[in-house]
């Protein structure tokens, strides 16, 4: 009955209810849009950091490469640590690559298939290398530019010579076929199978990656690896720093959005207070004919919750729609400039939507507190006596 009466009251003063709801739509819609922008941007940045790479990885480098090397045996030792599911080593060395008679000095990476998967090496053209083949090479666009090759498609299947030098100074030259091109790296880089480095007599890895089963085990695994004398790093470090920045960023966004919300709440409080003043005699009558003071308190609380929930739901829907529209426009614009990968600046996790709706229920209850208490305390005799 209370809910029915509350709805009737709100419908009776349609325009006032509409204006109040509009204020709430703008208030909660602003906050929701800003928060979903913050979350979307955070997810976008996290994605760039982690990419296809699992964040449950630990990067390993020798703390003192003169004393401790990363050999296959050492990697086996790391592999035996609890919660480590796999380990992959990479060779990184200075090399020379000769293409079309021109030579360039650059960094070469000797990798295996696990390292390729973990390291977010995204092939822009062609294919990745077959880690079992020792005659395939992937180059980056910086290398092609330095070699004067503008058309990356023409670079595919070209033959190059790769010269590696081992610790003793002996060089090893191998012929490689370009099978793929990547966009990554500021300077010239090439990627070959680890086997190519081994053939050149280089058997000490420069770095390794250990894969950990669960994120919460990363700290323990790092401690174990460091106790073996290695230095460790993890994408989780960067991610934590990024999350810290975004925590502050989101607080700033919420604070800005709260300005609109405060205005909406004040509007709702004004509406309820005016409604109470207008309906003093009605409430007094109802108390006189048998309504309990708590019924009158509930009436105002229900009215406030209906206003805030309705305004909240519409505000969230409008914010989500605007987010989708902005994303669509930006993606269209980016696609026109050659960026084919779609992206989303606005994220709408279900928990955010449910949380926002619950927040609005709480806001309704809080805002209605004072008017509801005043309604419950109306003295029917005095109120009905007033002319």
């Amino acid at each position, binding site marked *: *009955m209370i809910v*029915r*009466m509350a709805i*009737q*009251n709100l*419908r*009776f*003063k349609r325009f006032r209810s509409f204006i109040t709801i509009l204020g709430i739509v703008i208030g909660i819609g602003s906050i929701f849009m800003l928060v979903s922008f913050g979350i979307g941007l955070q997810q976008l940045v996290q994605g760039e950091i982690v990419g296809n790479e699992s964040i449950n990885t630990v990067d390993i480098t020798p703390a003192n490469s003169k004393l401790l090397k990363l050999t296959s045996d050492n990697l086996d030792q790391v592999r035996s640590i609890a919660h480590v599911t796999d380990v992959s080593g990479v060779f990184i060395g200075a090399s020379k690559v000769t293409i079309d008679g021109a030579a360039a000095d650059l960094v070469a990476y000797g990798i295996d298939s696990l390292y390729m998967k973990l390291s977010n090496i995204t092939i822009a053209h062609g294919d990745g290398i077959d880690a079992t083949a020792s005659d395939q090479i992937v180059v980056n666009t910086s290398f092609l530019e330095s070699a004067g090759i503008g058309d990356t498609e023409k670079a595919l299947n070209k033959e190059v010579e790769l010269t590696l030098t081992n610790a003793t100074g002996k060089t090893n030259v191998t012929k490689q076929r370009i099978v793929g091109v990547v966009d990554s790296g500021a300077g010239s880089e090439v990627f070959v199978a680890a086997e190519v480095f081994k053939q050149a007599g280089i058997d000490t890895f420069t770095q390794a990656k250990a894969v950990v089963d669960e994120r919460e085990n990363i700290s323990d695994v790092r401690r174990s690896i460091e106790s073996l004398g290695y230095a460790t790093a993890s994408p989780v470090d960067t991610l934590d720093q990024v999350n810290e920045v975004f925590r502050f960023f989101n607080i700033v966004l919420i604070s800005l959005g709260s300005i609109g919300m405060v205005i909406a709440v004040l509007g709702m409080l004004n509406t309820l207070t005016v409604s109470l003043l207008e*309906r003093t*005699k*009605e409430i*007094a*009558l*109802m*108390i*006189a*004919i*048998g*309504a*309990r*003071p*708590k*019924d009158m308190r509930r009436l105002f609380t229900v009215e406030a919750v209906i206003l805030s929930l309705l305004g909240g739901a519409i505000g969230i829907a409008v914010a989500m729609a605007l987010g989708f529209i902005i994303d669509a426009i930006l993606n269209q614009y980016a696609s026109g400039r050659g960026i084919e990968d779609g992206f989303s600046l606005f994220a709408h996790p279900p928990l955010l939507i449910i949380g926002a709706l619950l927040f609005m229920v709480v806001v309704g209850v809080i805002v209605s507190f004072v008017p509801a208490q005043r309604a419950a305390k109306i003295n*029917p*005799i005095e109120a*009905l*006596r007033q*002319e």
Partner: protein
Amino acid sequence: MTSGKPLIEVRNMTKSFKLPGGDEIEVLHNVDFEILDGSFTIIYGPSGSGKSTLLNAIIGLDEPTSGTVTYEGKDLYAMSQNDRAHFRAFTMGMVQQTNNWVKSLNVLENVALPLHFMGVNHDSALAQAKNSLQRIGIEMHAKKFPSVLSGGEQQRAAMARALVNNPAYIVADEPTGNLDSKNSDNLINLLRYLNTEFGRTIVLVTHNLEYLSIGDKLLLIEDGNVTEIKGKDIRATTTHMLTDMRKRIEGWAKV
């Protein structure tokens, strides 16, 4: 027609109000009477004599400064505010001089209100409200809003609301105050009908001398004192008061 059983008992009741300056004024002094089940009691007094104060005390809206008000032996003011509201919903029907309505509800929904406060479900409450309107003869106005009804129609709708919960007693606080004589008589006749035919206990507050003799008991309030007059003494008192009034009118006329 009364069963003789006391329904409402007021014992040694006084009521005082604090004035803004801090002084206290005693409006009702040592009021002591009972209202029997099935009786028709009239409370009469000049304006400001304390009629409404007495009425509010006996319906559980205004706690006395001292003394007791009981309903079927239960002290009204020993109950909590919520329990007294509950008591009003189940036991009492009320008609006032200016009836207030919940503006957002139509006549039918307004008449059904006491039933909602009793916990009756919505559809049953509306059905009973419709019956109540039919008994009063204004069911054609069910879907209208009370503000569009005439004064007389509003009072009849208020009667329907007062009857909808089948109350033990009905209080009418100057119900004819804003009505013309025809509508006033109709309303009073309705109250008499409910009392004589259905045995409803009626408590009528009025300052209309002409209605004083219709009750079983007359409570005269003057300067905060309540005098109980029953039976044949009512007619004698009424005649005396009418004579006094005629003399006063003639006295003014000479001037």
